[in-house]
């Protein structure tokens, strides 16, 4: 590792093929490394053991806030959650393992979909554990009291500038994540998700949630059709991936609220952060504005692809990573030779 410089500067990220330039760690008290595996395992145990209810707040550095009431229960074979939005449109989301049903009460519409997230109950295997160890360093942080509970803190420091860092506080007894911060290279907190109040061992009943989830009377139930595919089958590949990011999922989505059918979503992950590449056929009617936008820890990049006036595709890259990582993905995308247009 290169000598530590005085401040947290951001050295240039690796260009494909070159060694990444190590960056100075976020200044922290020197401490021995923790066992990452043990910590990750504990992270996943938290929501498995207990029933809880609380108020969850997601806030971005811009000051924007989103919050919801959460009820959660798990009995070892099933995990259920009910989330009621407190901000924005009134939404109630129910989840049973990977099945998700979102009620749009104002439109009498219920949208059913599958959430496929790594590490989600009942999967015990945490994919990407190895990758996490290779690209982040675990460091301890001072304990904090969050929403009335004592929580242990750790910091996940990225080893290169392609990703953000994380600060995580887990409730001491159960390991439940109480507060999560995504931080950038200068230590600035981009986004925070935290319980503002939490009642552990709340009397949340599985059968009650199940009954509520099943109450779709009067609602139009829509199922999102998503077709699994492979990038290769769709004619896409990526050269020189960003270090640490592996492809995890590729799927075709149908019309999303008015879009033309056939949008492709290709997901990459480094174990903690993920990036989605959304590809559509270019349509001059709908695709008017290229640009970059940020929401909390999430960056997005939208542009025509290839980057020419006659590019046939419209690409949007979204991820909880620095903008240069999104650009590297956009640069690395390739249309396979012989693939149809």
């Amino acid at each position: 590792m290169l000598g530590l410089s005085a401040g947290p500067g951001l050295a240039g990220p690796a260009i494909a093929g070159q060694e990444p330039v190590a960056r100075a760690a976020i200044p922290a008290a020197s401490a021995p490394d923790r066992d990452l595996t043990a910590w990750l395992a504990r992270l996943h145990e938290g929501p498995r053991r207990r029933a809880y209810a609380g108020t969850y707040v997601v806030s971005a550095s811009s000051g924007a806030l989103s919050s919801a009431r959460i009820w959660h229960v798990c009995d070892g074979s099933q995990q259920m959650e009910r989330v009621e939005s407190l901000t924005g449109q009134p939404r109630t989301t129910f989840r049973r393992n990977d099945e998700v049903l979102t009620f749009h009460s104002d439109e009498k519409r219920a949208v059913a979909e599958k959430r496929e997230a790594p590490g989600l109950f009942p999967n015990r295997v945490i994919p990407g554990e190895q990758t996490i160890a290779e690209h982040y360093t675990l460091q301890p942080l001072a304990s904090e009291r969050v929403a009335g509970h004592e929580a242990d803190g750790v910091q996940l420091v990225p080893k290169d500038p392609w990703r953000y860092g994380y600060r995580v506080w887990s409730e001491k007894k159960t390991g439940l994540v109480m507060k999560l911060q995504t931080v950038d290279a200068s230590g600035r907190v981009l986004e925070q998700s935290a319980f503002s109040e939490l009642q552990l061992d709340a009397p949340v009943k599985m059968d009650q949630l199940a009954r509520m989830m099943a109450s779709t009377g009067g609602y139009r139930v829509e199922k999102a059709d998503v077709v699994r595919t492979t990038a290769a089958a769709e004619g896409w590949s990526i050269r020189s991936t960003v270090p640490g990011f592996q492809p995890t999922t590729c799927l075709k989505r149908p019309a999303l609220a008015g879009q033309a059918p056939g949008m492709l979503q290709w997901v990459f992950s480094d174990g903690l952060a993920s990036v989605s590449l959304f590809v559509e056929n270019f349509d001059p009617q709908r695709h008017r504005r290229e640009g970059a936008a940020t929401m909390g820890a999430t960056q997005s990049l939208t542009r025509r692809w290839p980057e020419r006036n006659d590019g046939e595709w419209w690409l949007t890259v979204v991820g909880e990573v620095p903008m240069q990582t999104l650009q590297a993905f956009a640069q690395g995308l390739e249309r396979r030779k012989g693939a149809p247009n």
Partner: protein
Amino acid sequence: MNTEEQLKLREQVSALADGQLHGVAFAATVEQLGGDEDGRASWHVYHLIGDVLRSSELGTCQHDRDFVARLSARLQAEPGVPRGLDGLHESPELIANSDRNTLGTAKIDRKSGAAANDGSYRWKMLAGLATVVAAAAIGWSGLGDRSGEALLARQSAPEPVKVALGAGPTGGAESVSVGAVMIRDPHLDGLLAAHRQFGGSSVFQNPSGFLRNATFDAGASRGSRAPGQ
């Protein structure tokens, strides 16, 4: 504040009057009302309407504004009561803790001496929420066009990041005044939701309710949707 935002705040005020806002939505709206003329005027007229509907006698409101202004000045002069929102600023928990029927004993959990690593905590300043439309919580900040060079320059330290971008200027070293324009982009919100569904930082077990972004179905975006959509 333009008319669309004015209307959005008025809608929140209407809901607030009927006890429909809680937690952060409540706090955000009340915060915004503190500095918003039209919002407070709406709060006044909505309640006036209710009073008049119940009894036409209560239409007398000639001096309402004067009354409140006079009282406000006297309240300011009151000793021993904390002025401003210092207590609230230090404890985001207090804001979101409010529950419908429990008054609680308003314990202000002052986090005196935030941990050293909380130095650049931004959202503690809930007062800054005044510019955020309360109804829609999170919006995208447009950071300039083409390849996000503006953002690049902002995020980078002095070293310009040299990522080959093909045609177009190299990553600018000049820093950009990040005029974070808050934009609404339902299309982008939809992609974000799709992204979270299959990825996100889900290893941290964050609740699935946040798959659906708060602004997903709020209002039209500017320019990113074809007419007629």
